């Protein structure tokens, strides 16, 4: 069985996508078991049957070559390491931030059109204030940590170099920490609700960026969990 672990490590390090490696190894284990059972039906004892099944599977090189030769089985992080590790988490976060702004604006527009808040403001909108602030807090403070951490977990699973995911996490932490988003729903008629997005740097921002970056690095402390054979 160590043969399969060695094969998995080799495939991951050579850039084959984690999901393909995991399934390939599971399929090979199953295959070896089926082959061993067939050998036993032919009269071999269990030990010889297992040995014969492994010989039938081929060498580590034979088993690795077919996977590494196929470009479509390569991980995105191996194909585009700079973009995947360094740029994508930041872009995804910005995309979600912008999309959430449109969603909030859309909610206000719908309420306005439906007559709940016909003149822009309404006491009803006060009920949305706390949930909207919570959503913004999650998007601006928690989501970046999740995205940066996820990029590091994927890099660990894929046995990729950590350089670009670490750069991406750092840029994401700095950007997210510098962003200040506020939402204010108007509760009085003839006044409009507002969503403000600002960027600023202060000692507090730097401290926040540091805390977020440190939180993103948590997967590195659990490295063994994410790099154990078969994970």
């Amino acid at each position, binding site marked *: 069985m160590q043969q399969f672990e060695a094969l998995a490590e080799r495939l991951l390090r050579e850039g084959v996508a984690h999901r393909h490696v995991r*399934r*390939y190894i599971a399929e090979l284990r199953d*295959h070896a078991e089926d082959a061993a059972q067939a050998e036993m039906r032919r009269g071999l004892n269990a030990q010889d049957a297992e040995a014969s099944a492994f*010989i039938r599977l*081929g060498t580590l090189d034979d088993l*690795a070559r*077919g996977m590494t030769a*196929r470009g*479509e*089985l390569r991980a995105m992080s191996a194909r585009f390491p700079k973009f995947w590790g360094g740029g994508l988490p930041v872009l995804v976060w910005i995309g979600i931030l912008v999309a959430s702004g449109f969603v909030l604006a859309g909610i206000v527009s719908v309420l306005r059109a439906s007559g709940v808040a016909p003149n822009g403001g309404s006491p009803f909108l006060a009920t949305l204030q706390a949930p909207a602030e919570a959503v913004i807090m999650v998007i601006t403070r928690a989501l970046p940590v999740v995205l940066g951490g996820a990029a590091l977990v994927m890099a660990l699973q894929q046995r990729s170099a950590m350089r670009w995911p670490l750069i991406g996490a750092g840029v994401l932490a700095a950007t997210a920490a510098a962003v200040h988003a506020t939402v204010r729903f108007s509760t009085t008629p003839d006044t409009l609700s507002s969503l403000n997005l600002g960027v600023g740097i202060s000692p507090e921002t730097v401290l926040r960026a540091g805390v977020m970056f440190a939180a993103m690095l948590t997967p590195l402390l659990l490295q063994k969990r994410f790099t154990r054979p078969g994970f």
Partner: protein
Amino acid sequence: MPARKTNPDFMTGVPELLILRLLSTREMYGYEIVQAIETASGEAIKLGEGVVYPALHALEEQGCLKSRRKPVNGRTRVYYIATAVGKKRLSDLTGEWRRITDAVAGIVTGAKHATV
């Protein structure tokens, strides 16, 4: 015990053809596919497992196959079956294979105007 002898590099493209042919009618798992190819070819074609599984994964990535996990006797097997895209690909590969084999046969038997 010597390592099993499998077919050499000139078989490139053939595994996809054989796999798609088998999976165009019913779903099968990897071991079953290897056995079916050996049996159907009278053991003339022995595809290594290092060829079959990567081909299955690649064909699935290309949309030619779809897979599903199915519990069988306490184990979870991955079953594959050809999609409509896979059947179209099979048709193309079969045509290409016939063209090549006709051409090779023509050359081997001494026909004058064999084309590839």
